Protein backbone atom coordinates (compact mmCIF):
# COMPACT_ATOMS: atom_id res chain seq x y z
CA UNK A 1 0.00 0.00 0.00
CA UNK A 2 3.07 2.26 -0.12
CA UNK A 3 1.99 3.43 -3.59
CA UNK A 4 -0.89 5.26 -2.01
CA UNK A 5 1.24 7.64 0.03
CA UNK A 6 3.32 9.08 -2.82
CA UNK A 7 0.95 10.00 -5.66
CA UNK A 8 -2.19 11.02 -3.77
CA UNK A 9 -1.61 12.09 -0.18
CA UNK A 10 -4.42 13.80 1.66
CA UNK A 11 -3.96 17.54 1.11
CA UNK A 12 -2.69 19.73 3.96
CA UNK A 13 -1.22 16.71 5.72
CA UNK A 14 2.15 16.66 4.05
CA UNK A 15 3.97 19.98 4.60
CA UNK A 16 5.53 19.94 1.12
CA UNK A 17 2.08 19.94 -0.50
CA UNK A 18 0.90 23.04 1.31
CA UNK A 19 2.35 25.47 -1.23
CA UNK A 20 0.56 23.69 -4.03
CA UNK A 21 -2.75 23.73 -2.17
CA UNK A 22 -2.33 27.46 -1.57
CA UNK A 23 -1.54 28.04 -5.21
CA UNK A 24 -4.63 26.12 -6.22
CA UNK A 25 -6.71 28.20 -3.85
CA UNK A 26 -5.29 31.43 -5.23
CA UNK A 27 -6.00 30.19 -8.75
CA UNK A 28 -9.64 29.50 -7.78
CA UNK A 29 -9.99 32.96 -6.27
CA UNK A 30 -8.46 34.55 -9.35
CA UNK A 31 -10.95 32.75 -11.56
CA UNK A 32 -13.78 33.90 -9.31
CA UNK A 33 -12.79 37.55 -9.61
CA UNK A 34 -12.58 37.25 -13.38
CA UNK A 35 -16.11 35.84 -13.51
CA UNK A 36 -18.58 38.60 -14.37
CA UNK A 37 -21.50 36.56 -13.04
CA UNK A 38 -19.84 36.25 -9.66
CA UNK A 39 -18.86 39.92 -9.45
CA UNK A 40 -22.30 41.25 -10.40
CA UNK A 41 -23.97 38.86 -7.95
CA UNK A 42 -21.53 39.65 -5.15
CA UNK A 43 -22.01 43.40 -5.52
CA UNK A 44 -25.82 42.99 -5.38
CA UNK A 45 -25.53 40.91 -2.22
CA UNK A 46 -22.98 43.27 -0.66
CA UNK A 47 -25.28 46.23 -1.33
CA UNK A 48 -27.97 44.62 0.84
CA UNK A 49 -25.47 43.44 3.44
CA UNK A 50 -24.30 47.05 3.72
CA UNK A 51 -27.85 48.30 4.29
CA UNK A 52 -28.56 45.50 6.75
CA UNK A 53 -25.58 46.67 8.80
CA UNK A 54 -26.25 50.39 8.35
CA UNK A 55 -29.95 49.96 9.10
CA UNK A 56 -31.99 52.97 10.10
CA UNK A 57 -28.86 55.06 10.76
CA UNK A 58 -28.41 55.97 7.10
CA UNK A 59 -31.95 55.80 5.71
CA UNK A 60 -33.50 59.16 4.71
CA UNK A 61 -36.32 58.68 7.27
CA UNK A 62 -36.80 56.45 10.29
CA UNK A 63 -38.28 53.24 8.80
CA UNK A 64 -40.63 52.86 11.78
CA UNK A 65 -41.75 56.46 12.34
CA UNK A 66 -45.33 57.14 11.33
CA UNK A 67 -46.62 60.37 9.83
CA UNK A 68 -50.04 61.79 8.94
CA UNK A 69 -48.92 61.70 5.31
CA UNK A 70 -50.49 58.28 4.57
CA UNK A 71 -50.38 56.43 1.25
CA UNK A 72 -48.75 59.37 -0.50
CA UNK A 73 -47.54 58.65 -4.01
CA UNK A 74 -44.00 59.04 -5.29
CA UNK A 75 -42.63 62.53 -4.61
CA UNK A 76 -39.36 64.36 -4.10
CA UNK A 77 -39.76 64.01 -0.35
CA UNK A 78 -40.75 60.32 -0.43
CA UNK A 79 -39.11 58.79 -3.50
CA UNK A 80 -41.02 55.52 -3.11
CA UNK A 81 -44.14 57.05 -1.47
CA UNK A 82 -45.52 56.21 1.98
CA UNK A 83 -47.53 53.28 3.34
CA UNK A 84 -50.80 52.98 5.33
CA UNK A 85 -49.19 54.40 8.46
CA UNK A 86 -47.37 57.17 6.66
CA UNK A 87 -44.01 55.44 6.87
CA UNK A 88 -41.44 56.17 4.17
CA UNK A 89 -41.30 53.19 1.78
CA UNK A 90 -37.76 53.90 0.55
CA UNK A 91 -36.40 53.86 4.12
CA UNK A 92 -38.32 50.68 4.87
CA UNK A 93 -37.04 48.98 1.73
CA UNK A 94 -33.45 49.89 2.59
CA UNK A 95 -33.80 48.76 6.21
CA UNK A 96 -35.85 45.69 5.26
CA UNK A 97 -32.97 43.34 4.52
CA UNK A 98 -31.63 42.92 8.04
CA UNK A 99 -33.92 40.18 9.40
CA UNK A 100 -33.74 38.08 6.25
CA UNK A 101 -29.98 38.43 6.18
CA UNK A 102 -29.72 37.21 9.78
CA UNK A 103 -32.11 34.30 9.52
CA UNK A 104 -31.29 32.93 6.07
CA UNK A 105 -27.50 32.49 6.45
CA UNK A 106 -27.79 30.98 9.93
CA UNK A 107 -30.50 28.58 8.77
CA UNK A 108 -28.34 27.63 5.78
CA UNK A 109 -25.35 27.05 8.04
CA UNK A 110 -27.40 24.80 10.30
CA UNK A 111 -28.81 22.87 7.35
CA UNK A 112 -25.35 22.44 5.81
CA UNK A 113 -23.84 21.27 9.10
CA UNK A 114 -26.67 18.81 9.73
CA UNK A 115 -26.85 17.64 6.13
CA UNK A 116 -23.10 17.16 5.88
CA UNK A 117 -23.07 15.01 9.02
CA UNK A 118 -26.04 12.90 7.90
CA UNK A 119 -24.67 12.64 4.36
CA UNK A 120 -21.22 11.55 5.57
CA UNK A 121 -22.69 8.95 7.93
CA UNK A 122 -25.15 7.48 5.41
CA UNK A 123 -22.65 7.57 2.55
CA UNK A 124 -19.84 6.07 4.59
CA UNK A 125 -21.63 3.30 6.42
CA UNK A 126 -24.30 2.42 3.81
CA UNK A 127 -26.22 -0.74 4.79
CA UNK A 128 -28.92 -0.59 7.42
CA UNK A 129 -27.98 2.88 8.75
CA UNK A 130 -28.26 4.35 5.29
CA UNK A 131 -31.45 2.44 4.53
CA UNK A 132 -33.22 3.64 7.69
CA UNK A 133 -32.18 7.28 7.44
CA UNK A 134 -32.89 7.45 3.71
CA UNK A 135 -36.47 6.27 4.31
CA UNK A 136 -37.10 9.10 6.75
CA UNK A 137 -35.47 11.54 4.34
CA UNK A 138 -37.78 10.33 1.53
CA UNK A 139 -40.83 10.79 3.72
CA UNK A 140 -39.86 14.32 4.72
CA UNK A 141 -39.11 15.24 1.12
CA UNK A 142 -42.57 14.02 0.08
CA UNK A 143 -44.02 17.12 1.69
CA UNK A 144 -43.60 20.61 0.30
CA UNK A 145 -40.99 22.45 2.37
CA UNK A 146 -43.39 25.23 3.22
CA UNK A 147 -46.08 22.86 4.53
CA UNK A 148 -43.65 21.22 6.97
CA UNK A 149 -42.34 24.60 8.02
CA UNK A 150 -45.81 26.03 8.62
CA UNK A 151 -46.84 23.02 10.72
CA UNK A 152 -43.64 23.19 12.77
CA UNK A 153 -43.81 26.95 13.25
CA UNK A 154 -47.41 26.75 14.43
CA UNK A 155 -46.39 24.07 16.90
CA UNK A 156 -43.30 25.85 18.18
CA UNK A 157 -44.40 29.47 17.86
CA UNK A 158 -42.77 32.01 15.55
CA UNK A 159 -39.53 33.63 16.56
CA UNK A 160 -36.29 34.21 14.73
CA UNK A 161 -34.67 31.27 16.50
CA UNK A 162 -37.45 28.80 15.67
CA UNK A 163 -37.44 30.09 12.10
CA UNK A 164 -33.71 29.37 11.83
CA UNK A 165 -34.08 25.93 13.42
CA UNK A 166 -37.08 24.91 11.33
CA UNK A 167 -35.54 25.93 7.99
CA UNK A 168 -32.20 24.40 9.01
CA UNK A 169 -33.85 21.10 9.95
CA UNK A 170 -35.89 21.01 6.75
CA UNK A 171 -32.74 21.63 4.70
CA UNK A 172 -30.81 18.85 6.44
CA UNK A 173 -32.25 15.93 4.41
CA UNK A 174 -31.93 17.86 1.15
CA UNK A 175 -28.28 18.69 1.78
CA UNK A 176 -27.60 15.16 3.03
CA UNK A 177 -28.56 13.75 -0.38
CA UNK A 178 -25.99 15.88 -2.18
CA UNK A 179 -23.28 15.09 0.36
CA UNK A 180 -24.14 11.38 0.34
CA UNK A 181 -23.77 11.28 -3.44
CA UNK A 182 -20.39 13.02 -3.20
CA UNK A 183 -19.23 10.65 -0.42
CA UNK A 184 -20.22 7.61 -2.50
CA UNK A 185 -17.80 8.86 -5.16
CA UNK A 186 -14.97 9.09 -2.62
CA UNK A 187 -15.39 6.18 -0.28
CA UNK A 188 -13.85 3.57 -2.58
CA UNK A 189 -10.80 5.69 -3.41
CA UNK A 190 -7.39 4.60 -2.25
CA UNK A 191 -6.77 7.33 0.29
CA UNK A 192 -9.89 6.27 2.21
CA UNK A 193 -8.83 2.62 2.11
CA UNK A 194 -5.37 3.63 3.30
CA UNK A 195 -6.80 5.51 6.26
CA UNK A 196 -8.98 2.56 7.12
CA UNK A 197 -6.04 0.17 6.92
CA UNK A 198 -4.05 2.47 9.18
CA UNK A 199 -6.75 1.70 11.71
CA UNK A 200 -8.31 5.14 11.85
CA UNK A 201 -11.72 5.39 13.47
CA UNK A 202 -14.79 6.04 11.31
CA UNK A 203 -15.35 9.65 12.51
CA UNK A 204 -11.72 10.47 11.69
CA UNK A 205 -11.99 9.02 8.20
CA UNK A 206 -15.29 10.80 7.59
CA UNK A 207 -14.44 14.26 8.87
CA UNK A 208 -10.68 14.51 8.36
CA UNK A 209 -10.14 12.44 5.23
CA UNK A 210 -13.36 12.57 3.19
CA UNK A 211 -14.83 15.94 4.22
CA UNK A 212 -12.04 18.14 2.74
CA UNK A 213 -12.43 16.30 -0.55
CA UNK A 214 -16.16 16.91 -0.84
CA UNK A 215 -16.00 20.59 0.15
CA UNK A 216 -16.54 21.76 -3.45
CA UNK A 217 -20.06 20.37 -3.81
CA UNK A 218 -20.86 21.43 -0.24
CA UNK A 219 -19.90 25.06 -0.91
CA UNK A 220 -21.96 25.14 -4.09
CA UNK A 221 -24.87 23.52 -2.26
CA UNK A 222 -24.55 26.13 0.51
CA UNK A 223 -24.92 29.07 -1.88
CA UNK A 224 -27.84 27.42 -3.66
CA UNK A 225 -29.45 26.68 -0.27
CA UNK A 226 -28.95 30.30 0.79
CA UNK A 227 -31.11 31.35 -2.15
CA UNK A 228 -33.79 28.87 -1.09
CA UNK A 229 -33.48 29.98 2.54
CA UNK A 230 -34.26 33.56 1.54
CA UNK A 231 -37.13 32.20 -0.56
CA UNK A 232 -38.43 30.24 2.43
CA UNK A 233 -38.06 33.08 4.94
CA UNK A 234 -39.86 35.40 2.54
CA UNK A 235 -42.72 32.95 1.96
CA UNK A 236 -43.16 32.11 5.64
CA UNK A 237 -43.02 35.76 6.66
CA UNK A 238 -45.61 36.59 4.03
CA UNK A 239 -47.89 33.94 5.54
CA UNK A 240 -47.35 35.45 8.98
CA UNK A 241 -45.21 32.64 10.42
CA UNK A 242 -41.82 34.23 9.96
CA UNK A 243 -40.40 37.61 10.92
CA UNK A 244 -42.90 39.49 13.05
CA UNK A 245 -43.98 43.17 13.00
CA UNK A 246 -42.91 45.93 13.50
CA UNK A 247 -39.83 44.84 11.58
CA UNK A 248 -39.66 46.59 8.18
CA UNK A 249 -38.99 43.19 6.56
CA UNK A 250 -39.82 43.18 2.83
CA UNK A 251 -42.25 40.27 2.91
CA UNK A 252 -43.97 41.76 5.91
CA UNK A 253 -44.47 45.00 4.00
CA UNK A 254 -46.04 43.04 1.16
CA UNK A 255 -48.24 41.05 3.56
CA UNK A 256 -49.40 44.27 5.24
CA UNK A 257 -50.24 46.11 2.07
CA UNK A 258 -51.17 43.66 -0.70
CA UNK A 259 -54.88 43.93 -0.04
CA UNK A 260 -54.70 47.61 -0.94
CA UNK A 261 -54.24 46.47 -4.54
CA UNK A 262 -57.92 45.53 -4.61
CA UNK A 263 -58.54 49.29 -4.70
CA UNK A 264 -56.67 49.35 -7.99
CA UNK A 265 -53.83 51.64 -6.87
CA UNK A 266 -51.20 52.12 -4.07
CA UNK A 267 -48.92 49.70 -5.95
CA UNK A 268 -45.73 51.38 -4.62
CA UNK A 269 -46.32 49.93 -1.15
CA UNK A 270 -45.71 46.40 -2.45
CA UNK A 271 -43.81 46.80 -5.69
CA UNK A 272 -40.57 48.17 -4.23
CA UNK A 273 -40.18 45.62 -1.40
CA UNK A 274 -40.93 42.94 -4.00
CA UNK A 275 -38.22 44.18 -6.33
CA UNK A 276 -35.83 44.31 -3.36
CA UNK A 277 -36.42 40.63 -2.53
CA UNK A 278 -36.00 39.77 -6.19
CA UNK A 279 -32.68 41.63 -6.45
CA UNK A 280 -31.25 39.96 -3.34
CA UNK A 281 -32.21 36.47 -4.54
CA UNK A 282 -30.95 37.06 -8.07
CA UNK A 283 -27.67 38.30 -6.55
CA UNK A 284 -27.28 35.16 -4.44
CA UNK A 285 -28.02 33.00 -7.47
CA UNK A 286 -25.46 34.76 -9.61
CA UNK A 287 -22.86 34.14 -6.87
CA UNK A 288 -23.91 30.48 -6.73
CA UNK A 289 -23.67 30.21 -10.51
CA UNK A 290 -20.23 31.81 -10.55
CA UNK A 291 -18.97 29.50 -7.79
CA UNK A 292 -20.38 26.46 -9.56
CA UNK A 293 -18.56 27.26 -12.78
CA UNK A 294 -15.25 27.66 -10.95
CA UNK A 295 -15.53 24.78 -8.44
CA UNK A 296 -17.32 22.12 -10.53
CA UNK A 297 -14.80 21.33 -13.17
Amino acid at each position, binding site marked *: MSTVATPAPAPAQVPGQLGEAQLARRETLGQLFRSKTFLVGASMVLFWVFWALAGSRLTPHDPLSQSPDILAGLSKHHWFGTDQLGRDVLSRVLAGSSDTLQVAPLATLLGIAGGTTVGLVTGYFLGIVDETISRVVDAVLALPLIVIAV*TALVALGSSKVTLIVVIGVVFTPIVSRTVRAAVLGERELEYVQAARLRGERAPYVMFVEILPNVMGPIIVEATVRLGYAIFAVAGLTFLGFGVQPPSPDWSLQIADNYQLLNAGTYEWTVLFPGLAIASLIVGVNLVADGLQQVLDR
Partner: protein
Amino acid sequence: MITLLVLSVIVFAAAQLLPGDIGRNVLGPFASPHDVAVFNHEHGVDRPITRQYWDWISHFVRGDLGDSLQYNVPVAHLLGPSLVNSLKLAALAFVLVVPISLLGGIVAALRRNRITDRVITVAGLSLTSIPEFVTAIVLIVIFGVVLKWLPVSATAPPGSSALIQIKYLLLPSFALVAVLFGYIARITRAGVIEAIDADYTRTAFLKGLSTRRVLFRHVLRNSLLPTIAVVATQTGYLIGGLLVIEKLFNYNGIGQRIYTAATYKDFTFLQSGVLIVGIVYLTATLLADILYSLLNPRIRFGSAE
Protein backbone atom coordinates in the same frame (compact mmCIF):
# COMPACT_ATOMS: atom_id res chain seq x y z
CA MET B 1 -45.80 2.32 0.95
CA ILE B 2 -43.22 2.43 3.75
CA THR B 3 -42.55 6.05 2.85
CA LEU B 4 -46.25 6.72 3.27
CA LEU B 5 -46.31 5.04 6.68
CA VAL B 6 -43.30 7.00 7.92
CA LEU B 7 -44.91 10.12 6.52
CA SER B 8 -48.12 9.50 8.46
CA VAL B 9 -46.14 9.09 11.69
CA ILE B 10 -44.24 12.32 11.07
CA VAL B 11 -47.42 14.23 10.27
CA PHE B 12 -49.13 12.84 13.34
CA ALA B 13 -46.17 13.66 15.56
CA ALA B 14 -46.02 17.20 14.19
CA ALA B 15 -49.73 17.70 14.86
CA GLN B 16 -49.25 16.40 18.40
CA LEU B 17 -46.61 19.05 18.95
CA LEU B 18 -49.25 21.76 18.79
CA PRO B 19 -48.87 23.28 22.20
CA GLY B 20 -51.48 23.52 24.85
CA ASP B 21 -54.66 21.78 25.73
CA ILE B 22 -56.75 21.09 22.66
CA GLY B 23 -60.07 21.54 24.50
CA ARG B 24 -58.82 24.78 26.00
CA ASN B 25 -57.76 26.02 22.58
CA VAL B 26 -61.12 25.33 20.98
CA LEU B 27 -63.40 26.40 23.81
CA GLY B 28 -61.44 29.51 24.72
CA PRO B 29 -60.01 30.82 27.97
CA PHE B 30 -63.36 31.28 29.72
CA ALA B 31 -64.63 27.68 29.50
CA SER B 32 -64.78 25.81 32.80
CA PRO B 33 -62.16 23.11 33.43
CA HIS B 34 -65.02 20.57 33.50
CA ASP B 35 -66.18 21.51 29.99
CA VAL B 36 -62.63 21.31 28.72
CA ALA B 37 -62.23 17.84 30.19
CA VAL B 38 -65.54 16.70 28.67
CA PHE B 39 -64.52 18.09 25.27
CA ASN B 40 -61.15 16.39 25.41
CA HIS B 41 -62.81 13.13 26.36
CA GLU B 42 -65.40 13.36 23.58
CA HIS B 43 -62.69 13.97 21.00
CA GLY B 44 -60.57 11.25 22.49
CA VAL B 45 -57.50 13.42 22.89
CA ASP B 46 -57.02 12.35 26.52
CA ARG B 47 -56.13 8.81 25.46
CA PRO B 48 -52.60 7.42 25.03
CA ILE B 49 -50.83 8.69 21.92
CA THR B 50 -50.43 5.29 20.29
CA ARG B 51 -54.18 4.62 20.61
CA GLN B 52 -54.89 8.01 19.05
CA TYR B 53 -52.52 7.34 16.18
CA TRP B 54 -54.05 3.94 15.49
CA ASP B 55 -57.54 5.36 15.70
CA TRP B 56 -56.71 8.16 13.29
CA ILE B 57 -54.82 6.08 10.76
CA SER B 58 -57.32 3.18 10.72
CA HIS B 59 -60.18 5.61 10.11
CA PHE B 60 -58.13 7.47 7.55
CA VAL B 61 -57.55 4.31 5.54
CA ARG B 62 -61.31 3.72 5.48
CA GLY B 63 -61.86 7.23 4.16
CA ASP B 64 -63.04 8.78 7.44
CA LEU B 65 -60.87 11.81 8.01
CA GLY B 66 -62.47 12.87 11.29
CA ASP B 67 -64.26 16.10 12.18
CA SER B 68 -62.70 19.53 11.91
CA LEU B 69 -62.23 21.05 15.37
CA GLN B 70 -62.73 24.52 14.00
CA TYR B 71 -65.97 24.06 12.07
CA ASN B 72 -67.26 20.87 13.69
CA VAL B 73 -68.07 19.28 10.32
CA PRO B 74 -66.34 16.29 8.69
CA VAL B 75 -62.90 17.17 7.37
CA ALA B 76 -63.73 15.51 4.05
CA HIS B 77 -66.56 18.02 3.43
CA LEU B 78 -64.10 20.90 3.71
CA LEU B 79 -61.25 19.15 1.99
CA GLY B 80 -63.18 17.96 -1.08
CA PRO B 81 -64.25 21.31 -2.61
CA SER B 82 -60.98 23.04 -1.76
CA LEU B 83 -59.01 20.19 -3.33
CA VAL B 84 -61.10 20.59 -6.50
CA ASN B 85 -60.45 24.35 -6.51
CA SER B 86 -56.73 23.82 -6.07
CA LEU B 87 -56.68 21.19 -8.82
CA LYS B 88 -58.34 23.68 -11.18
CA LEU B 89 -55.62 26.21 -10.46
CA ALA B 90 -52.83 23.63 -10.62
CA ALA B 91 -54.20 22.16 -13.84
CA LEU B 92 -54.32 25.56 -15.52
CA ALA B 93 -50.78 26.26 -14.34
CA PHE B 94 -49.61 22.90 -15.74
CA VAL B 95 -51.39 23.37 -19.06
CA LEU B 96 -49.66 26.72 -19.42
CA VAL B 97 -46.23 25.79 -18.09
CA VAL B 98 -45.51 22.56 -19.95
CA PRO B 99 -45.67 23.86 -23.54
CA ILE B 100 -44.06 27.19 -22.64
CA SER B 101 -41.10 25.66 -20.86
CA LEU B 102 -40.63 22.84 -23.37
CA LEU B 103 -40.53 25.42 -26.13
CA GLY B 104 -38.17 27.61 -24.07
CA GLY B 105 -35.86 24.69 -23.33
CA ILE B 106 -35.80 23.45 -26.92
CA VAL B 107 -35.16 26.91 -28.36
CA ALA B 108 -32.40 27.51 -25.79
CA ALA B 109 -30.76 24.19 -26.68
CA LEU B 110 -30.91 24.82 -30.43
CA ARG B 111 -29.42 28.30 -29.96
CA ARG B 112 -26.90 27.01 -27.47
CA ASN B 113 -24.54 29.63 -25.98
CA ARG B 114 -25.99 32.36 -28.15
CA ILE B 115 -27.83 35.37 -26.82
CA THR B 116 -31.30 33.73 -26.97
CA ASP B 117 -30.03 30.83 -24.88
CA ARG B 118 -28.44 33.13 -22.28
CA VAL B 119 -31.62 35.19 -21.99
CA ILE B 120 -33.87 32.14 -21.58
CA THR B 121 -31.52 30.44 -19.10
CA VAL B 122 -30.86 33.49 -16.94
CA ALA B 123 -34.51 34.62 -16.97
CA GLY B 124 -35.64 31.09 -16.09
CA LEU B 125 -33.16 30.80 -13.24
CA SER B 126 -34.13 34.18 -11.83
CA LEU B 127 -37.88 33.57 -12.09
CA THR B 128 -37.48 30.17 -10.43
CA SER B 129 -35.72 31.56 -7.41
CA ILE B 130 -37.89 34.61 -6.80
CA PRO B 131 -40.69 33.82 -4.33
CA GLU B 132 -44.00 33.27 -6.10
CA PHE B 133 -45.79 35.99 -4.20
CA VAL B 134 -43.23 38.53 -5.35
CA THR B 135 -43.73 37.51 -8.99
CA ALA B 136 -47.46 37.58 -8.37
CA ILE B 137 -47.31 41.09 -6.92
CA VAL B 138 -45.41 42.34 -9.95
CA LEU B 139 -47.92 40.62 -12.27
CA ILE B 140 -50.87 42.08 -10.34
CA VAL B 141 -49.37 45.55 -10.53
CA ILE B 142 -48.78 45.26 -14.27
CA PHE B 143 -51.93 43.46 -15.45
CA GLY B 144 -54.37 44.25 -12.66
CA VAL B 145 -53.51 47.77 -11.56
CA VAL B 146 -51.76 49.53 -14.43
CA LEU B 147 -53.29 47.84 -17.49
CA LYS B 148 -56.47 46.65 -15.74
CA TRP B 149 -56.73 43.65 -18.08
CA LEU B 150 -57.19 40.96 -15.46
CA PRO B 151 -59.00 40.78 -12.10
CA VAL B 152 -56.91 41.17 -8.96
CA SER B 153 -58.77 38.44 -7.04
CA ALA B 154 -58.87 34.79 -8.10
CA THR B 155 -62.40 33.89 -7.06
CA ALA B 156 -64.87 34.34 -9.89
CA PRO B 157 -68.42 35.38 -8.95
CA PRO B 158 -70.46 32.23 -8.16
CA GLY B 159 -72.05 30.58 -11.17
CA SER B 160 -69.61 32.02 -13.69
CA SER B 161 -68.87 30.06 -16.83
CA ALA B 162 -65.65 28.09 -17.18
CA LEU B 163 -64.16 30.78 -19.39
CA ILE B 164 -64.71 33.51 -16.81
CA GLN B 165 -63.27 31.25 -14.11
CA ILE B 166 -60.14 30.74 -16.22
CA LYS B 167 -59.83 34.50 -16.64
CA TYR B 168 -59.84 34.89 -12.87
CA LEU B 169 -57.28 32.11 -12.46
CA LEU B 170 -54.86 33.44 -15.08
CA LEU B 171 -52.83 35.72 -12.81
CA PRO B 172 -52.27 33.19 -10.00
CA SER B 173 -51.33 30.49 -12.49
CA PHE B 174 -48.89 32.81 -14.24
CA ALA B 175 -47.16 33.28 -10.90
CA LEU B 176 -46.83 29.50 -10.51
CA VAL B 177 -45.74 29.17 -14.15
CA ALA B 178 -42.95 31.68 -13.51
CA VAL B 179 -41.49 29.54 -10.74
CA LEU B 180 -41.80 26.22 -12.60
CA PHE B 181 -40.64 27.51 -16.00
CA GLY B 182 -36.99 27.70 -14.98
CA TYR B 183 -36.76 24.11 -13.73
CA ILE B 184 -38.53 22.49 -16.63
CA ALA B 185 -36.83 24.60 -19.31
CA ARG B 186 -33.41 23.84 -17.81
CA ILE B 187 -33.96 20.10 -17.82
CA THR B 188 -35.42 20.19 -21.33
CA ARG B 189 -32.44 22.19 -22.55
CA ALA B 190 -29.98 19.73 -21.00
CA GLY B 191 -31.87 16.78 -22.48
CA VAL B 192 -32.03 18.24 -25.97
CA ILE B 193 -28.35 19.17 -25.92
CA GLU B 194 -27.41 15.66 -24.87
CA ALA B 195 -29.52 14.20 -27.66
CA ILE B 196 -28.06 16.58 -30.27
CA ASP B 197 -24.55 15.56 -29.28
CA ALA B 198 -25.38 11.85 -29.38
CA ASP B 199 -24.02 9.60 -32.10
CA TYR B 200 -27.45 8.55 -33.31
CA THR B 201 -28.29 12.15 -34.16
CA ARG B 202 -25.15 12.45 -36.26
CA THR B 203 -26.01 9.18 -37.94
CA ALA B 204 -29.50 10.47 -38.67
CA PHE B 205 -28.09 13.63 -40.24
CA LEU B 206 -25.54 11.65 -42.22
CA LYS B 207 -28.31 9.38 -43.48
CA GLY B 208 -29.58 12.54 -45.13
CA LEU B 209 -32.74 13.06 -43.08
CA SER B 210 -34.15 16.56 -42.98
CA THR B 211 -33.41 18.70 -39.93
CA ARG B 212 -37.06 18.73 -38.94
CA ARG B 213 -37.28 14.94 -39.13
CA VAL B 214 -34.14 14.47 -37.06
CA LEU B 215 -35.41 16.94 -34.51
CA PHE B 216 -38.81 15.38 -34.01
CA ARG B 217 -38.09 11.67 -34.50
CA HIS B 218 -34.67 11.41 -32.91
CA VAL B 219 -33.83 14.36 -30.70
CA LEU B 220 -37.12 15.21 -29.02
CA ARG B 221 -38.24 11.63 -28.46
CA ASN B 222 -35.11 10.97 -26.46
CA SER B 223 -34.74 14.25 -24.72
CA LEU B 224 -38.22 14.67 -23.29
CA LEU B 225 -37.94 11.64 -20.99
CA PRO B 226 -36.09 13.30 -18.11
CA THR B 227 -38.42 16.25 -18.45
CA ILE B 228 -41.41 14.12 -17.52
CA ALA B 229 -39.71 13.02 -14.33
CA VAL B 230 -38.98 16.63 -13.40
CA VAL B 231 -42.50 17.82 -14.12
CA ALA B 232 -43.82 15.25 -11.64
CA THR B 233 -41.40 16.13 -8.87
CA GLN B 234 -42.58 19.70 -9.14
CA THR B 235 -46.10 18.76 -7.95
CA GLY B 236 -44.76 18.93 -4.41
CA TYR B 237 -43.53 22.43 -4.97
CA LEU B 238 -46.78 23.34 -6.68
CA ILE B 239 -48.80 22.50 -3.58
CA GLY B 240 -46.47 24.55 -1.40
CA GLY B 241 -46.72 27.40 -3.88
CA LEU B 242 -50.51 27.14 -3.70
CA LEU B 243 -50.35 27.87 0.02
CA VAL B 244 -48.88 31.29 -0.66
CA ILE B 245 -50.65 32.06 -3.93
CA GLU B 246 -54.09 31.12 -2.61
CA LYS B 247 -53.63 33.43 0.34
CA LEU B 248 -52.43 36.28 -1.86
CA PHE B 249 -55.37 35.93 -4.25
CA ASN B 250 -57.79 34.99 -1.47
CA TYR B 251 -58.72 31.76 -3.27
CA ASN B 252 -60.44 28.94 -1.41
CA GLY B 253 -58.12 26.03 -2.15
CA ILE B 254 -56.30 23.38 -0.12
CA GLY B 255 -53.39 25.71 0.58
CA GLN B 256 -55.67 28.34 2.05
CA ARG B 257 -57.44 25.62 4.08
CA ILE B 258 -54.21 24.24 5.52
CA TYR B 259 -53.13 27.77 6.31
CA THR B 260 -56.34 28.53 8.25
CA ALA B 261 -56.21 25.17 9.98
CA ALA B 262 -52.64 25.92 11.05
CA THR B 263 -53.49 29.35 12.43
CA TYR B 264 -56.54 28.03 14.31
CA LYS B 265 -54.68 24.93 15.55
CA ASP B 266 -57.35 22.72 13.99
CA PHE B 267 -55.17 19.65 14.35
CA THR B 268 -57.65 17.07 13.00
CA PHE B 269 -57.89 19.01 9.77
CA LEU B 270 -54.19 19.71 9.68
CA GLN B 271 -53.01 16.12 10.01
CA SER B 272 -55.47 14.70 7.49
CA GLY B 273 -54.98 17.59 5.07
CA VAL B 274 -51.19 17.38 5.16
CA LEU B 275 -51.25 13.60 4.74
CA ILE B 276 -53.54 14.00 1.71
CA VAL B 277 -51.03 16.45 0.25
CA GLY B 278 -48.28 13.87 0.76
CA ILE B 279 -50.41 11.18 -0.89
CA VAL B 280 -51.20 13.41 -3.89
CA TYR B 281 -47.49 14.06 -4.28
CA LEU B 282 -46.47 10.41 -4.03
CA THR B 283 -49.22 9.43 -6.48
CA ALA B 284 -47.98 12.01 -8.97
CA THR B 285 -44.45 10.65 -8.62
CA LEU B 286 -45.70 7.11 -9.14
CA LEU B 287 -47.70 8.11 -12.24
CA ALA B 288 -44.61 9.82 -13.62
CA ASP B 289 -42.57 6.66 -13.02
CA ILE B 290 -45.15 4.59 -14.87
CA LEU B 291 -45.38 7.07 -17.75
CA TYR B 292 -41.60 7.19 -17.89
CA SER B 293 -41.29 3.42 -18.17
CA LEU B 294 -44.03 3.29 -20.81
CA LEU B 295 -42.19 5.85 -22.91
CA ASN B 296 -38.76 4.41 -22.37
CA PRO B 297 -38.40 1.00 -23.99
CA ARG B 298 -35.13 0.37 -22.17
CA ILE B 299 -36.69 0.07 -18.74
CA ARG B 300 -40.08 -1.24 -19.75
CA PHE B 301 -39.33 -4.69 -18.37
CA GLY B 302 -36.76 -3.40 -15.93
CA SER B 303 -35.88 -4.48 -12.43
CA ALA B 304 -38.93 -2.77 -10.95
CA GLU B 305 -40.97 -5.96 -11.05
